[in-house]
């Protein structure tokens, strides 16, 4: 039954896409995030729907789109360079078969991230992209939120998000970081959405979705999610006018939430303080140390999944009053950090490219946030959107410290939205200048300069 519903949904989506090709881009985005082929047992999982959607999206753009005002951002070039570099490390990888496995999905995420901004020619397209990203992720987040409330917290690795194989957004830590990262964008829709006008129904839905997002780190008991919530709370201070009452409200809400948190969550969060008695945290530190040493002998990276070659040993302090410690050994442990994932797999060159893509995004969004801060200007929606995308990106970069999500496709879509917003606003600025030259300069309001 579910199979038929998914097929009907996809067919309707594709049919609409033939009328408006941009919807095919949204269809690919949906398939990449939700992976409907993994939620069904028949039919869909035998057809390469992701590939079909990608071919349709690109084909639609090539054949039917107006490409006169297409701009290519510097970060799109960097993304393509990163992809080519990853290809080079893949063919020279320490573990060729395993590297090819990861390359198989990484190149798709990167090529789509480079392609996506080309299609974002109008404000509505940027909004539609973000709306579909949120709605797609919400199909996982709502389930996680409801199950967290119903079960009183699932505990680490046990929250059932429909798919068992713990990959993509269905992995607990990843969905925790992503759920918190999209909260600022959900809040942006409460004021500036035009597809669903922000009336009481939309606002209620958005608030409920934000609540579900906040429940995901509780349900999955991920420490990274808690840190992300903390960063989000700090960054949100700059968006509110009355900061002191807001801070007091945050404190009261935080304290009021503690009694409702399940013990599985509070027990796990307490281990942040006793990291030296926690083998999960110590394994990470040992792997990171190994990666730094590995990069010295392999400065250009060992290719995807190079961590499989590691052998680590570390001291675990005994919990409680016992002062002794025991030596633990392990091998083939994953990076548990996007920064070390890049360093180990792609070396210093790959890490530098990846950092450049991310840091330029943060800086560009800061420039746009300040440039379009006038609430009465023509682009009053743009400054808050840049701020929301920047906050989401910063939350991701914090989460990425403890999760190996350097190539998470969802984040590359967020980066694609940033580039699209940036090139769109640059084009609009150019148009305003053009009009100003043609007509009376006072007739067209200039956006405030940075």
């Amino acid at each position, binding site marked *: 039954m*579910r199979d038929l*519903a998914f097929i009907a*949904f996809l067919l*309707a*989506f594709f049919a*609409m896409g033939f*009328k*408006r090709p*941009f*919807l095919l881009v*949204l269809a690919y985005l*949906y398939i990449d995030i939700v992976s409907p082929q993994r*939620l069904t047992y028949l039919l869909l999982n035998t057809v390469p729907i992701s590939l079909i959607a990608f071919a349709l999206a690109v084909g639609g753009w090539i054949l039917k789109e*107006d490409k006169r*005002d297409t701009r290519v951002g510097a970060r799109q070039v960097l993304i393509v360079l990163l992809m080519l570099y990853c290809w080079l490390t893949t063919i020279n990888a320490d573990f060729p078969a395993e590297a090819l496995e990861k390359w198989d999905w990484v190149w798709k995420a990167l090529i789509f991230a480079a392609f996506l901004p080309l299609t974002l*020619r*109008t*404000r*509505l*397209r940027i909004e*539609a992209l973000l*709306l*579909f990203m949120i*709605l*797609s992720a*919400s*199909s996982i987040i*709502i*389930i996680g939120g*409801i*199950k967290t409330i*119903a079960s009183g917290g699932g505990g680490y690795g046990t929250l059932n998000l*429909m798919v068992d194989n713990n990959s993509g957004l269905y992995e607990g830590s990843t969905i925790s970081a992503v759920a918190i990262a999209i909260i600022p964008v959900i809040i942006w829709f409460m004021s*500036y959405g*035009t*597809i*669903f006008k922000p009336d009481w129904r939309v606002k209620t839905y958005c608030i409920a979705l934000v609540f579900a997002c906040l429940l995901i780190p509780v349900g999955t008991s991920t420490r990274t999610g808690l840190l992300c919530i903390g960063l989000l709370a700090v960054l949100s201070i700059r968006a509110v006018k009355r900061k002191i009452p807001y801070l007091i409200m945050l404190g009261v809400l935080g304290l009021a939430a503690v009694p409702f948190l399940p013990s599985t969550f509070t027990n796990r969060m307490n281990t942040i303080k006793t990291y030296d008695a926690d083998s999960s945290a110590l394994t990470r530190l040992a792997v990171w140390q190994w990666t730094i040493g590995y990069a010295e002998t392999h400065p250009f990276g060992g290719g995807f999944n190079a961590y499989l070659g590691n052998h680590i040993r570390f001291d675990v302090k005994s919990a409680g009053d016992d002062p002794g410690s025991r030596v633990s050994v392990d091998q083939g442990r994953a990076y548990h950090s996007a920064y070390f994932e890049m360093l180990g797999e792609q070396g210093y060159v790959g890490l530098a490219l990846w950092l450049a893509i991310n840091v330029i995004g943060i800086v560009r969004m800061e420039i746009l946030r300040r440039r379009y801060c006038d609430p009465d200007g023509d682009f*009053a*929606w743009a400054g808050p959107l840049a701020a929301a995308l920047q906050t989401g990106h910063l939350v991701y970069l914090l989460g990425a410290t403890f999760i190996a999500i350097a190539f998470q496709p969802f984040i590359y879509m967020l980066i694609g939205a940033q580039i699209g917003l940036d090139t769109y606003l640059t084009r609009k600025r150019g*148009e305003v200048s*053009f*009009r100003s030259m*043609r007509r009376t300069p006072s007739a067209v309001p200039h956006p405030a300069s940075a």
Partner: protein
Amino acid sequence: MINNLALGLSHGLMILAAFLLLRRPDLDREPGPHDAADTRPGRTRTPPGA
């Protein structure tokens, strides 16, 4: 049950959003500098707030 409810809700909203997008001419085209003063029928203008 919960799975189907959440999937139905999110997918229903996506179909509705796609349908609403079909009816929005500014999805594909916003007025450019060359047609700022162009008021011919069929030409679209930026929606409020855009």
